[in-house]
């Protein structure tokens, strides 16, 4: 019978904490860049001009249909040679997940914008607003509220996907767990602890998202009306 011993894990708690901080950092960076980029892509995709619509559609489809790990390897190993820059694991990770999540966020934004009734557009235009004003003042505020659930789900999904950065030696929680496991010869305890840390953080985030979703549904402004 195996004797569980979590003492070596406790002794390395600082490494795991640093790993969790790094995970949150890369998630935060990807969110901060991915959301505006996603909005931009969505607006381009909805544009009446083909030269804006087409490239946005291509970026969204490519990043949604290729595996994120392949994208990460491409950005980490291939891109630096192509444009002759130094690529740190952090930059490659942040870049990959910004663009990748932007592709998914773009679809969330698009769904939200499309769901706003035509009448809202027409009324705004009838009031003398330009297309851009109507979008910014009338349509987007309504769309943002409706797409919040899908948006939060994507953000949580993003945090789970950032574990991939461990494969390019960015010192996130999973990478640190692997290091500690090799150092202490206690993979069972270390990986179990890492899994539990992820579970607690992500579970709290999902519960918060669900709570918010319920409140929005109660205020009569969910995705479905």
């Amino acid at each position: 019978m195996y004797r569980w011993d979590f003492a070596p894990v406790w002794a390395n708690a600082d490494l795991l904490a640093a790993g969790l901080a790094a995970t949150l950092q890369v998630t935060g960076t990807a969110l901060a860049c991915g959301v505006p980029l996603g909005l931009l892509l969505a607006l381009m995709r909805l544009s009446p001009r083909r030269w804006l619509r087409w490239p946005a559609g291509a970026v969204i489809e490519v990043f949604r249909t290729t595996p994120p790990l392949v994208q990460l390897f491409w950005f980490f190993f291939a891109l630096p040679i192509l444009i002759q820059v130094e690529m740190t694991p952090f930059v490659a990770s942040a870049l990959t997940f910004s663009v990748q999540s932007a592709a998914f966020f773009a679809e969330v934004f698009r769904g939200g914008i499309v769901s706003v009734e035509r009448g809202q557009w027409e009324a705004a235009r009838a009031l003398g607003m330009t297309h851009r004003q109507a979008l910014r003042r009338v349509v987007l505020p309504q769309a943002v509220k409706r797409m919040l659930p899908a948006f939060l789900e994507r953000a949580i999904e993003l945090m789970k996907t950032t574990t991939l950065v461990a494969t390019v030696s960015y010192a996130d929680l999973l990478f640190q767990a692997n290091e500690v496991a090799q150092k202490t010869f206690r993979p069972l305890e270390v990986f179990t602890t890492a899994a539990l840390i992820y579970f607690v953080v992500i579970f709290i985030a999902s519960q918060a998202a669900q709570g918010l979703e319920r409140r929005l549904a109660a205020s009569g402004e969910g995705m479905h009306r």
Partner: protein
Amino acid sequence: MAYRWNFGPVLDNADVLLKGAFGTLRLFAVCALAGLLLGLVVGLMRQSAHRRWRWPATAFVEFFRNTPVLVQILWFYFALPILAPFEVSPMLAAALGISLNSAAFTAEIVRGGIVSIDRGQWEGARALGFTAAQAMRRVVLPQALRRMLPALTNRGIEIFKMSTLASAVAYVELLQQGKLIASLNFNPIETYTVIAVVFFLCLLPLVQATYALERRLGRADA
């Protein structure tokens, strides 16, 4: 200085990639089948009237949905062998991680599909003398499955993409073979570009089919 692309070395290693593609397909087939079937079972368990079925199913779904799949794969590869009396191969670790993760997501799709069916269908079936199990199997599930189809094909696409994570435990699949070629020929640009294109071309028809399915069902339901 512009980079001179040279796909020669990648094409010379087409057999290596082919072996990887075979590994990817094998893992995908196992995980898709196991994940969808187990997901159906767990989804039905969550709808059960008995707490002893419902509770473990909920715990399973919450745990596997709220931890990253790569952590699960590494847990099965490095931690499980300590508890289990057998060897855990890279294939087994990856298959366990991806299948169980997909099962948890599929269970939620199944639950959503069943819940979306109008109560009247249940009541009608029960009024005709069906038992709960018969009503589920003959009346509710067939209708629910139709509605779940786009979400399920999406799951399949996710599983295909997830199969690349098996390279983290050195399972021989496309990306793993790509790593090998890139490190032997010092040509990461061409190799990873080819890998990305292969995945894109494999998945694009599936993605398009899902869109078409969504449109068709959207029209049918409206």
